[in-house]
């Protein structure tokens, strides 16, 4: 599975409502219409989020470019930057 680069808008929101995984997480709405949970590759799901990546979601909906692998609906990001 190769890495892909995606552009879109990043927010922080509750994901997987009602499941054992419900939590606050970063969410990317991609320009091609997908909605993906985002985590820094190597970071844990319920631990402290990557500060640099989290900053990209301020203000909510900021346009960003993220690179990483999509595993089970989650983008494990290895590189990111604000655009626009």
């Amino acid at each position, binding site marked *: 599975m190769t890495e892909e680069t995606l552009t879109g808008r990043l927010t922080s929101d509750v994901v997987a*409502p*009602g*499941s*054992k995984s419900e939590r606050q997480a970063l969410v990317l709405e991609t320009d091609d219409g997908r*909605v993906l949970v985002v985590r820094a590759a190597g970071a*844990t799901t319920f631990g402290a989020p990557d500060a640099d990546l989290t900053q990209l979601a301020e203000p909510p909906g900021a346009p960003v470019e993220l690179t990483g692998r999509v595993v089970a609906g*989650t983008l494990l990001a290895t590189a990111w930057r604000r655009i626009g």
Partner: protein
Amino acid sequence: MTKLVLTNLTALRAKHGQAGLAAVRVAVAELVAADRARGIRTRLVAVDDGRTARTLGLPLVSDPADEEAVKQAVDAVAARWSPEYLLLLGSPDVVPMQELTSALFTGDPRRGDPDPTVPSDLPYACESPYSHDPGTFRGPTRVVGRLPDGTGCRDPAQLVRLLAAAAAHRSGPKEQLLPPFALTAAAWHSSSVTTLTKVAGDAAALTDVPPDGPPWAPELVGRRMHLLNLHGGVADPLFSGQKGRSFPVALDAGTLSSVLTPGTVAAAECCYGALLYDPADAAGAPGFGDAYLAAGAAGYCASTTTAYGPAAGNDAADLVCGSFLRHVLSGASLGRAMLQARQDYVFTKATLSPVDLKTLAQFVLLGDPSIHPVERPGALVGAADGGVSPKARPGAGAPPSGIAARRRRLESNGRALHDSTTHAAAEARRPGAAEAERVRAALARRPGGTRRVERDPGELRTFDVLPAGGAAPGPQERFHVLAEPQARGHGLVVVREESGTVQQVTRLVPR
């Protein structure tokens, strides 16, 4: 009795090289010899082998990721040899899991289930032909397990160790597995008490996280049965507890190798607890499925995707894991315990909801399915119908007598479940305005149901109930699934309705 070890040699060679494949073949031969002493005839079957394909009248599996071809091969192999045990040898990049659709997926993880598909070994346990529809696989009949070699791994050492451990396994008395090591997120304490009481007779062994947390005392984590009701994440080697908005680490997969007792049997209700991901996606840390087996566990039952359960009482993940452990304690093989847990789950449901279909699909067994963790006293005798070897020694792990009769019964049960279990449609439809309002009003009238769902019609999704064999749905029987805003986050509510009247409401609350 027969055990088939099914793999793809081309895929193993591509990952581990010719020498690596040779090492795996030697380890398989040693398992075959060990099984022979237990009265089990074990045969290696390669789905990419030309002679096997000709024998079965099937095309070669040329692409290891070709789920349809592999499913056809498994069905043909099962039909020809009627194995009592089917062991899938390798991770999903050797023998693929079947990617089943999840009707709960909305396309937006903020509005519900985040998983587009459910990687599953359930279809290999069913006689129904290849399909992406989980409703197809409601009548499991086969005993199936998997030994992973590490997704993306280029070293055969893990698989060789797992095969050696399976060959060396010895059964023991039930008391060796009790009391269990049982961890729960504090927020789910009540539900976990119910599960553990069913498994162990009481919940004295249950530990809440928080306040407790790692490192765990060796006398706790070294216990040979584990029950984990914790949070898990995609490509994440940590399970977490919960109290309020705090999610402290409860268990680190990286610590298991130094603390686990060989032969441990574990069941994890946690989301993604059996997602066999490439460690490269987690800074080199393997997931719990690989880590438990590598640390010496005999078997591990867990979910490949997001799992569900109620705040109090038992449902979904609780039922599968509890049933699996109970059957193990009663002397079943790991594979039969998994099959019976699946059958128990289908049997207890009036009809299968979208959550039930996902639950059934997502739990898999990692481990050699023929291993018997618990020795049944007096069962190790030559059997007219099962053929346990007279050479079998107590503790050697030979199957108890009567296996052929049990398999016939389980096959019949599975077929009966397939023909008698109605289930939710694979795709949702938008409910009509009057239908939606009726459901919302009914929910508001129920105890604890005064919360008002959002007016966005996309929040409510309706699944008609489909017939199965000779079983017809009830009049206008359907499920409604909605994400319900609550004081903290959302809940998932599953409503079963007949003739315009709500019959059952299941709340899968935020945990």
